[in-house]
């Protein structure tokens, strides 16, 4: 089964500084990878997805991620954090198995943005 590991459970940044949320994946073939964001008491929102096209993927709200096969990584970045970015972020891999097309979520990274 394919899986992801989010390397930080909590990340704290100051408003206006860069954001880096780290994710490594484990896959036996070329994976489909996603980043989702979850604001408190809200559902999950897709930020961006990698599906074997361009390795640098641009998403919504200024976020982007780079797929690095040699490092099995899919880190999420943003040049300048806003207060509204404070939320839980999930790195996700799509897994086709006898479970159909399941999404396998990481444990999440809580992003705190301070003034």
């Amino acid at each position: 089964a394919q899986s992801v590991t989010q390397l930080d459970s909590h990340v704290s940044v100051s408003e206006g500084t860069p954001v880096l949320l780290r994710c490594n994946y484990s896959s036996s073939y070329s994976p489909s990878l996603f980043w989702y964001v979850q604001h408190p008491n809200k559902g999950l929102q897709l930020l961006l997805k990698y599906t074997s096209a361009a390795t640098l993927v641009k998403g919504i709200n200024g976020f982007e991620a780079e797929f690095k096969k040699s490092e099995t990584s899919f880190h999420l970045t943003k040049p300048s954090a806003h207060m509204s970015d404070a939320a839980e972020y999930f790195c996700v891999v799509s897994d086709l198995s006898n479970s159909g097309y399941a999404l396998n979520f990481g444990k999440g990274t809580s992003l705190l943005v301070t003034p």
Partner: protein
Amino acid sequence: DAGVTQSPTHLIKTRGQHVTLRCSPISGHKSVSWYQQVLGQGPQFIFQYYEKEERGRGNFPDRFSARQFPNYSSELNVNALLLGDSALYLCASSFIYRPNYGYTFGSGTRLTVV
């Protein structure tokens, strides 16, 4: 356009009871998936349905069951509730069952078992 609608938003049940959660997908979407999110964890896959057929099942006991109706809405049923079933249950809809086309999640049903 309405997004993914889940009902109820919150409910409290007693151990041993049965619960039914409902999900209406986005108009035109034919696939519905269910996920369980325990507090402090990432969501875990329970079921996926497409065109009223089960396409996938996660590692959950047989107390969990689901179905999809002709209008593509879906129900998740949980029997003999345990305290450990307390979680946020999320429904995701998509045009087809492949996530590359994008899954849209509802806001979830918060189930508390006491």
